[in-house]
């Protein structure tokens, strides 16, 4: 590897089979949940139940992406909560906007 004398000798470790297998499992779950969403989109009639299901499945996917792919689940707890707690403001934003929308004149 070292073409120049000042380059450090690098030790390449073998692939972590267990970890890689887990990553592919997460990818499979994400794909499967998307497939389920498709199924729901064309079999259920429109309504609150359908929207609620979509929201739940989206949160499941988000949890896998942030927790596993972005590795947040395995970070120090202070970091984990520093990222998670501020997202409560998004819930607040949602409630505030919906309230505002209900009291707003219709377009």
């Amino acid at each position, binding site marked *: 590897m070292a073409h120049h004398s000042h380059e450090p000798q690098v030790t390449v470790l073998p692939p972590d089979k267990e970890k890689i297998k887990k990553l592919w499992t997460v990818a499979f779950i994400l794909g499967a949940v998307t497939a389920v969403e498709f199924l729901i989109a064309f079999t259920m009639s429109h309504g609150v139940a359908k929207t609620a299901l979509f929201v739940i499945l989206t949160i499941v996917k988000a949890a896998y992406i942030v927790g596993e792919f972005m590795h947040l689940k395995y970070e120090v707890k*202070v970091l984990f909560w520093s990222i998670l707690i501020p997202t409560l403001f998004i819930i607040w934003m949602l409630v505030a906007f919906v309230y505002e929308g209900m009291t707003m004149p*219709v377009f």
Partner: protein
Amino acid sequence: MAHSTAATAPGKSVWDGGASPMGASYGKLMMWFFLLSDAFTFSGLLITYGLVRSSHPAFDGLPEAFTFSTEYWPIPEKVFEAVPFLHGYSLPLVFVGIMTFILIMSSVTMVLAVEAGHRMDRKAVEKWMLWTIVGGITFLSCQAWEWTHFIVGTDAPTLVKDFVNGQWITKEVTGANLHINQYGPQPFADFFFFITGFHGFHVFSGVLLNFLIYYNTVTGVYERRGHYEMVEKVGLYWHFVDLVWVFVFTFFYLV
């Protein structure tokens, strides 16, 4: 990932300096907080979409009887039902489904690049970064096609009221832009361009960053540095782009 919280002298807080209480480097931490702020931006867009959509009447007939009109909000799956090379077939949400799959796959290749970086495996990082870049470019190409289709419109035009030279006229419209829209109320097209455009620009920036990382890997910058943490940081950004798409997919296309 080094949990340096334990390495403090007795009677001294981890926050007194010399340790990283969050067990992450400055750069990684700042990437996390940037992504948090970006999440607020995207939430702003998506929540406003929900607000405006719910203040418009919905189409109350059977989905089979749906036609485009500016009187009610369109059913998304009736708008996005075209697939390249399959003109004339109604394939609702199939193309967005393919785009979702592409982005999930590129997220996997990114995380594999991060894993290879931890092992100092330069060749593997190069391989997986390249696949990630390919995934990003493929997604952007799909989006370019989708935008073109949305702008050009369907074969049959829709009658839309427009304000021209001081008076209202009714005219036949195909396609949509920020001024006129054949699919439904004007905000529908505006939100389409703003939300998918803002996300698409994130993907574009991500591809540029990924290329930078790939370049630095190939030239051995990270090998000389002794770690591949930059791959991790840009990886966080790339996964976030995938995460946002998951929400856009649900709230713009599915619901």
